[in-house]
């Protein structure tokens, strides 16, 4: 088992290019949630030439919608949703400086090409371990699109958020390289 690499947000090109597919990472700092509808709204703003509710430069978007926070906890259960639904919107966000995404599952060729071009990284968090992941979220607040409920944009402050680099900025893709090693 590889040693875990600690990284802090925001990310820059120098940090991103050091991360390699297969690295286990612990992320600390602020990350932002955005799912289907938030992406759609970002796109509508971009088309109208308007400012987005968050400055994406160097940031990580976590494809997630938490459960409501139980009293005494800092965040509800939270884990990744399947990323491919955000693919149509992603290259545009990468062009605007987004450096990392946390989700689960396949990405399109267009997304991976744009990640290579713009030097960005795609992390997988393990799906369905939301109570465990929530422990790394120390603070959570809704900062935009409150009307969307669980689909609102949350700003999370995380410490040692567990993730795995699945697609690195050179386009190496763990989802393609690992399964054949175990296929019979």
């Amino acid at each position, binding site marked *: 088992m590889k040693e875990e690499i600690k990284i802090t947000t925001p990310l820059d090109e120098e940090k991103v290019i050091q991360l390699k597919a297969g690295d286990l990472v612990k992320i600390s700092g602020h990350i932002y949630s955005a799912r289907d509808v938030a992406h759609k709204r970002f796109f509508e703003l971009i088309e109208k030439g308007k400012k987005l509710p968050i400055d994406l430069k160097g940031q990580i978007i976590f494809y997630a919608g938490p459960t409501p926070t139980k009293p005494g906890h800092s965040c509800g259960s939270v884990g990744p949703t399947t990323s491919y639904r955000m693919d149509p919107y992603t290259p545009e966000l990468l062009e605007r400086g987004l450096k990392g995404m946390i989700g689960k599952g396949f990405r399109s060729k267009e997304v991976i090409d744009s990640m290579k071009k713009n030097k960005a990284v795609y992390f997988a968090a393990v799906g369905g371990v*939301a109570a465990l992941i929530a422990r790394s979220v120390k603070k959570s607040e809704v900062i935009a699109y409150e009307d969307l409920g669980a689909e609102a944009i949350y700003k999370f402050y995380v410490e040692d958020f567990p993730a795995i680099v699945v697609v690195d900025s050179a386009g190496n893709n763990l989802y393609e390289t690992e399964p054949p090693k175990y296929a019979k």
Partner: protein
Amino acid sequence: MNKIKSIKIKDKVKELFFKANYHINQDLMKLLQQAQKKETSPIGKHVLQMIIENSKIASREEVPICQDTGLAVVFVEVGQEVHLVDGDFREAINRGVREAYQEGYLRKSVVDDPVFERKNTKTNTPAIIYTDIVPGDKIKLLVMPKGFGSENMSAIAMLKPADGPEVIVNFVVGTVKNSGPNPCPPTIIGVGVGGTADRAMLIAEKAITRKMGEHNKHEKYAAMEKEILEKINNLGIGPAGLGGNITSLAVHIDYLPTHIAGMPVAVNVCCHAARHAEGIL
């Protein structure tokens, strides 16, 4: 005649959704622990360890196992000697769901119109309710919060009778292969064969709630379950799709008589958080 008040149904539905969302069943836990021992990929082993650890935290703290607390599916078997009193039956179930999701810190994931408005109903209702009338004077409730990461990977094929078991096996394995990491492997695969297109999917979904890893009583279907599971695990997808020997924990097939001209096959994919709970009134 057994008189059952609607409030009893509401309370039971609520209790079962709490239980299903916070606590995984022991049969599933056993399969996960066996898988953790069997997995040879280091990352796969690590992922399975996280899954086991997560379910312990969720259970101890009574918080949701997964943030996708699902679309609320409720299977009801109503004994024909039951007399439902004091309120509307479907409303009682929906009230149980509403209260569970509001009071239990569960995520509300239902939109009213699937295409145009997609406005969140903020109550996680309406639930998907299936009702069967059966002999007896009891009501059996089986609840299943169905997450959509895995539901989205489900598929149906209207095969030809001449296709035989081999094409069924290939279709199921192919569906799992195409879904790769998306449905949160290790998955549980429900397969429904026969009936009509809709019935095939229904029995596929319900098959997931069978005791984990228990085989179909029909020897040939049991053999097909074993063959499919082996072929799926030979794909190498592994836990979280990061490579490994354990891609699915179980394959459950159910079948129904069908038309002379057809052989419907439905595959219902369920993530490792295969949540369901049942109770009797």
